[in-house]
């Protein structure tokens, strides 16, 4: 005891801080800022900034804006009534429906693309059931727009719905008592109050549509040259790295500007409505009109979200067309062939290895990403839990990779680490770059939420500093760490843009394998795409459930 009392270690707090920042910052320096500088250098080369390149870039930019704006409008069209439905009415299955609308947001793009293909594609369920009702879907602008709506409606529902349900019902009553009819209550009272939240959520949706890659490539095809798709094409199909660099710089600038505007609107929006109990506004539909609205809209929403998600597993168990090279009698109907094929290494197939190896690769990459992002995220989250003024500046710096697109990260890796591209190690590094902001944002509030008083209380009860860490910090952090790990795991599993650019053909991940299966002819390849996408969807859904279970309520919002 006497010895313990005299043992006092003094470490300068500044040294600790620097130590905490050293690892994550040097990682970002090497894996993000260095490639970024290479991209900028390539862009600013006079040979890049030709009028021909600039003209092409402006066309691409214009189309990117166009499709994003159109997608956002359509998302609002579905999202606003949905927000109203959820914020004002109570009906059976409401929480389930609400959860359902949020599912696509977490799903990998390949899964969503495969789902729409399974439902509406030329080899999809509807086309097979009604062969004469042929209408083009895959490869049209509509496919892109509808997939975007599918993805992002939940943002409008959450942001606008929250504002709507925190709106004081007395305001409406006051407006009515002053002589306003329903229409004018909406136009003069409710909409003006909701405007910041509608604007903010629209901008967020716009941002996601603007940077969308997988959906556009897989559902629209390379005809629809958005910035992202064009960067990908200029890297892999019609190699022109300087043009790709120019496009990604334009992309980055646009994303940053949109994010800045978004941040400003959000700070204004949060001042507007005071949080109050959300219960008082919610009631059961009473009049006939209300009943028709809630029933019809709930039905519309559930079929819109359920159909693509359920078509995918359904389609993966049914043979609806002949396999490539298959002659004679084709057995249509229920089959587990597509799953069994995943384990077979066929000559002349898309891969040199059994396709299931893609699953092993993905899991390996995901595991490495979890380790790496926790290793880097923990020190940063510890430092950011109680930031000094200098460290507040470092916070957006660490979040910056979130604003740059995945395809751009891939491009940066190719330009900077081209020599190591044969190594499978690059993939988890790229995934960590994408996952790190999420990991930090999950850990940081949990660490910050442990009040100093708890540690002092433990100390006054006889806990040594080590015991305080073991009994107070660790148990409280365990849940957040698990949530962060699952986040990193899910992100790595579904990551498509960067992986497509830098993964080796012999080490495909699940999303890359699905893309390759989808782009090949033949029923067997298509079926295997469906089977793999179903597996990926199940893995992701399981992860979402885990995250929800571990997450400390109210933390980790973006």
């Amino acid at each position, binding site marked *: 005891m006497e010895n313990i009392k*005299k043992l*006092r270690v003094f470490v300068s707090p500044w040294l600790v801080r620097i130590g905490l920042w050293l690892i994550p910052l040097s990682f970002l320096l090497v894996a993000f800022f260095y490639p970024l500088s290479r991209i900028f250098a390539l862009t600013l080369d006079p040979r890049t900034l030709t009028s021909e390149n600039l003209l092409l870039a402006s066309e691409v930019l214009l189309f990117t804006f166009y499709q994003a704006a159109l997608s956002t409008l359509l998302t609002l069209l579905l999202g606003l009534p949905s927000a109203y439905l959820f914020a004002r009415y109570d009906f059976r299955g409401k929480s389930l429906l609400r959860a359902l609308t949020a599912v696509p947001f977490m799903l990998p793009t390949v899964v969503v693309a495969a789902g729409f293909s399974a439902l509406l594609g030329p080899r999809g369920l509807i086309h097979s059931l009604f062969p004469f009702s042929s209408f083009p879907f895959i490869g049209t602008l509509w496919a892109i727009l509808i997939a975007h709506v599918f993805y992002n409606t939940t943002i409008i529902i959450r942001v606008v719905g929250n504002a709507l349900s925190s709106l004081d019902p007395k305001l409406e009553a006051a407006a009515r008592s002053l002589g306003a009819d329903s229409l004018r209550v909406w136009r003069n009272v409710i909409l003006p109050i909701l405007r910041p939240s509608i604007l903010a959520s629209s901008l967020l949706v716009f941002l996601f549509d603007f940077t969308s890659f997988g959906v556009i490539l897989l559902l629209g095809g390379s005809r629809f040259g958005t910035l992202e798709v064009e960067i990908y094409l200029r890297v892999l199909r019609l190699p022109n790295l300087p043009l790709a660099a120019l496009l990604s710089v334009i992309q980055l600038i646009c994303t940053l500007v949109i994010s800045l505007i978004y941040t400003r609107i959000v700070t204004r929006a949060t001042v507007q409505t005071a949080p109050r109990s959300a219960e008082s506004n919610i009631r059961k539909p009473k009049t006939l009109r209300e009943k028709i609205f809630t029933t019809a809209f709930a039905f519309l929403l559930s079929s819109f979200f359920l159909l693509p998600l359920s078509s995918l597993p359904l389609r993966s168990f049914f043979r609806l067309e002949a396999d490539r090279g298959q002659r004679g009698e084709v057995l249509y109907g229920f089959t587990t062939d597509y799953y069994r094929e995943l384990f077979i290494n066929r000559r002349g197939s898309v891969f040199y290895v059994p396709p299931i190896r893609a699953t092993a690769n993905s899991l390996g990459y995901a595991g490495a990403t979890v380790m790496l992002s926790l290793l880097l995220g923990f020190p940063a989250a510890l430092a950011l839990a109680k930031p000094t003024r200098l460290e507040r500046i470092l916070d957006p710096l660490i979040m910056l990779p979130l604003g740059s697109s995945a395809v751009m990260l891939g491009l940066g890796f190719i330009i900077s680490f081209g020599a190591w591209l044969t190594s499978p190690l690059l993939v988890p590094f790229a995934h960590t770059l994408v996952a790190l902001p999420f990991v930090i944002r999950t850990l940081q509030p949990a660490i910050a939420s442990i009040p100093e*008083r708890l540690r002092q*209380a*433990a100390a*006054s009860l006889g*806990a040594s500093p080590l015991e305080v860490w073991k009994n107070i910090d660790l148990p409280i952090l365990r849940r957040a760490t698990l949530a962060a790990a699952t986040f990193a795991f899910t992100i790595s599993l579904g990551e498509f843009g960067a992986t497509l650019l830098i993964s080796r053909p012999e080490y495909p991940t699940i999303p890359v394998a699905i893309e390759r299966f989808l782009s090949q002819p033949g029923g067997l390849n298509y079926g295997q795409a469906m089977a793999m996408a179903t597996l990926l969807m199940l893995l992701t859904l399981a992860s979402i459930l885990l995250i929800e279970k571990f997450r400390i309520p109210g933390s980790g919002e973006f």
Partner: protein
Amino acid sequence: MLEVQRIFKTYEGKPLLNDISFSVAEGETLCLLGASGSGKSTLLRIIAGLEEPESGFISFSGRDLTATPAHLRDFGLVFQDYALFPHLNVNENVAFGLKMRRLPQGEIAERVANSLKLVGLSGFEKRRVTELSGGEQQRVALARALATRPRLLMFDEPLGALDRALREDLLNELRMILHRTNIPAIYVTHDQEEAFAIADRVLILHEGQIVRAGTPAEVWSSPGSAFVAGFLGLGNIITGRYIGESEVETRFGVLTVDCKHKHQEGENIHLLARPLLAEKATNVVQGVVTDVVFQQDQFKVTLDNGLYVYLREVANVGEKIEVRVKVECLT
């Protein structure tokens, strides 16, 4: 038992604690009373070992504790916001300190049960602490501190977050528990009623110094300075000039004061006029009534010259009255 000697501490360059010395005897409850910013909480944290003094000593039963870290001091601490561990239930919270001391399971169970019984929370063992009311949480915090049988109990504004009625109940219980367990205690508060209700001895802290120490009755009957009288709200504080022969010139006219000290002629001194009337007092103050408030069984009457007194009978606003007040010397 506890000796605090010559503690100094500065905060952002300003002295926060300026030469603080006192002691707590066995079984004694000492109350540190002061406004926010008076340094009382810092003093408590220094005694607990959570902060270090710039100079000075803390000792207990003659043993120097200055270099002993908090977890080896064996002082129980109860916080204003309770600081219950949110990931543990009531039972686990109370058992925490006992586990740290590596007591055998059976003894832990017995002590937890006893502590919970002492604070009236038997049957709450399995409850989550986040589901408890404020009063219940405070009882758990107290049980948690009591379970380790500390050599000293410290309370940092323990009832500050509770409403008035609950505060009085808990205060009475706490006083009885402290007497029963005979553990010496230091109780920090800014509320003088709370302090007088629980303390055997009160220390009043002001700008980092102890400005008055004594039993509640002593402090009440002779506050000793204008600051203490004002802080405790004892009555009207009047400044005046001593003009000799026990007479002081004030804005209420010349008042006669019975003073133990010798004052120089022309010296500025502070007087206290308690609001309760003294029929035999020699000082008469006249004024027009500007405000009348009914309080308990009497009327608080304020005059146009600022003096307030308690009257048994109602006075009317605008009425000119004469009151007899007893004046004490504060300097």
